[in-house]
């Protein structure tokens, strides 16, 4: 077997065994949050990295997914699983309704438009308190205990969520690889590289942009639904432009169109500030500095930089 795959296997094994060795719930929580960010960053990569859509509304769809699933459970007493799927479907429809007109706008106007939509959605969630609970929506039910073959699994435990998020991450990555390596994915790439040329060659540019945008939003919405049940309480800030900005930072720092990039970005930007003393105070400073340094010296992100160091490295970094 190739040494590369042995290394990958060991990394995978370590990731699976984290809850066995890490006893503290705090650290399990931290790893789970990083996993959630990795899913969001991977899905944003589909729109940003692969199709070239700089979206500042990505977190908005995460938020809509979280809120619609939670509201279905709280107000209509829908069970968790159908609520999660229905919430994701609702978000996909909203994303399509927003994306359909928005994606006709190009370049910087599109970026500003998504920024406006992200802020508008946060304001709506914040002010529509009859439905969304205003500043915070709490009391979202936990996952139940399930008994299979006489063994009881507590699905509300932190450890279970760790594996759940890991599973979602793996499925997301496989899904994105499948899309990217298909005919659709090649169309995305051609739109990213030259939109006018793609249109001139007969590609339905706005249709494929919509597919990319809705697919990315749907993954984020599904993660949002799980997040709502994991946290038990959600705030409008999770849908805000600040969150979208952080996602964009993570992907730019990690590197686009790369599994390693979608892992490195959230790891670095979630954990390093955690180790800084007086973290809260210095976090924006750190975020901004990393962002500028990376964008000036590593325009393709950390993963892209590592790949370009040596031809052999390019094979090692997925």
């Amino acid at each position: 077997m190739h040494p590369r795959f042995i290394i990958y296997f060991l990394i995978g094994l370590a990731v699976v065994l984290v809850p066995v060795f890490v006893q503290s719930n705090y650290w399990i929580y931290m790893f789970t949050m990083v996993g959630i960010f990795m899913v969001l960053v991977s899905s944003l990569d589909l729109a940003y990295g692969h199709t070239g859509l700089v979206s500042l509304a990505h977190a908005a769809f995460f938020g809509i997914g979280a809120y619609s699933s939670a509201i279905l459970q709280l107000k209509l007493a829908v069970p968790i699983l159908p609520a999660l799927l229905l919430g994701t479907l609702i978000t996909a429809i909203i994303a399509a309704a927003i994306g359909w007109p928005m994606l006709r706008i190009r370049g910087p106007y599109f970026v500003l438009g998504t920024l406006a939509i992200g802020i508008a959605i946060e304001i709506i969630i914040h002010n529509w308190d009859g439905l969304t609970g205003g500043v915070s929506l709490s009391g979202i039910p936990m996952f139940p205990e399930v008994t299979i073959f006489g063994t009881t699994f507590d699905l509300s435990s932190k450890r279970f969520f760790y594996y759940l998020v890991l599973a979602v991450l793996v499925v997301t990555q496989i899904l994105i690889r499948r899309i990217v390596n298909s005919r659709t994915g090649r169309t995305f790439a051609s739109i990213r590289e030259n939109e006018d040329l793609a249109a001139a060659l007969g590609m339905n540019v706005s249709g494929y942009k919509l597919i990319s945008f809705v697919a990315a939003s749907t993954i984020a919405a599904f993660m949002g639904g799980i997040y709502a049940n994991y946290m038990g309480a959600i705030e409008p800030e999770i849908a805000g432009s600040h969150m979208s900005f952080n996602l964009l930072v993570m992907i730019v720092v990690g590197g686009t169109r790369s599994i390693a990039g979608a892992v490195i970005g959230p790891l670095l930007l979630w954990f390093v500030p955690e180790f800084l003393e007086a973290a809260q105070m210095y976090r924006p400073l750190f975020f901004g500095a990393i962002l500028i340094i990376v964008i000036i010296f590593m325009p393709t992100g950390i993963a892209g930089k590592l790949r370009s160091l040596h031809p052999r490295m390019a094979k090692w970094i997925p």
Partner: protein
Amino acid sequence: MAEFLQYTTNGLIAGSSYGLLALAMTLIYGILSVPNFALGGIYALGAFVAFYVVQWMGPGYYLFSIVPAVLIGMIIAIVTERLVFRPLYDAPHAAGFIAALGLYSILEGSWAILFDPTWRKIASPYNDIVLQLGPICLTMQRLIILVFCLLFALATYYLVYRTLTGKKIRAASENKSVAQLMGISPFTTTTMTFIVGCVLVMIAGVLDAPAALVGASMGLTPITKAFIVVALGGLGSVPGAIMGGLILGLGENYGAAYISSMYKDLFSYGLFIVVLLILPNGLYRR
């Protein structure tokens, strides 16, 4: 009717301040094709300058704080342009935009550390003087905002359309390589534009400070709205920025007065999205 006039005045005052920020943004956008989000941090610095001038020298010196604000604005323009934007001169525009977001983050973080992060009020002497102009009622401070914003907007208009520097700026924003062939240095012009932009934003910060709360993150909402104004008016267009500012200010105040004040901020973003969908290139096509 009296109410309507009052809302119109409020709208014009808010709009003139948006317009000043948008003017700075549109000039820099014209030359770099980068929406410079970092101006939000510089705006907050302007407000802090006013705060410390008033604290150390007394409220009577409030308007004097424009002088140090202008000087600091020039320095910060040169430093940020050199360190952050010039290395990205040939990079794709998305890189410049993301770097600008990063710079904003650095500025906001620095102000929170340098000046403690609580929100505070400025004791401007003009805040307490209430003027009654027919049916309209407004404080002296708001009149100062209106008058100074229009004054500086006119000065900028003069600079851009009536001076040699302005001609260079317009030439470089029209076509950088042709401008370079005509002997116009793109770097000097970019620095000049940055200086004009940052100075305008610092002045806007000084003017708005007494009417708002001063804090490290105070620039975020105004600069986001300035973005929207710039896109409303057409990115890179100078008259578009001023018109867009006034339209947004009026639209926001009418919306808040006649529809719902809770969703005041939503109107600006909604208005923007609607305009964007109808006119994807803004009101003024450049």
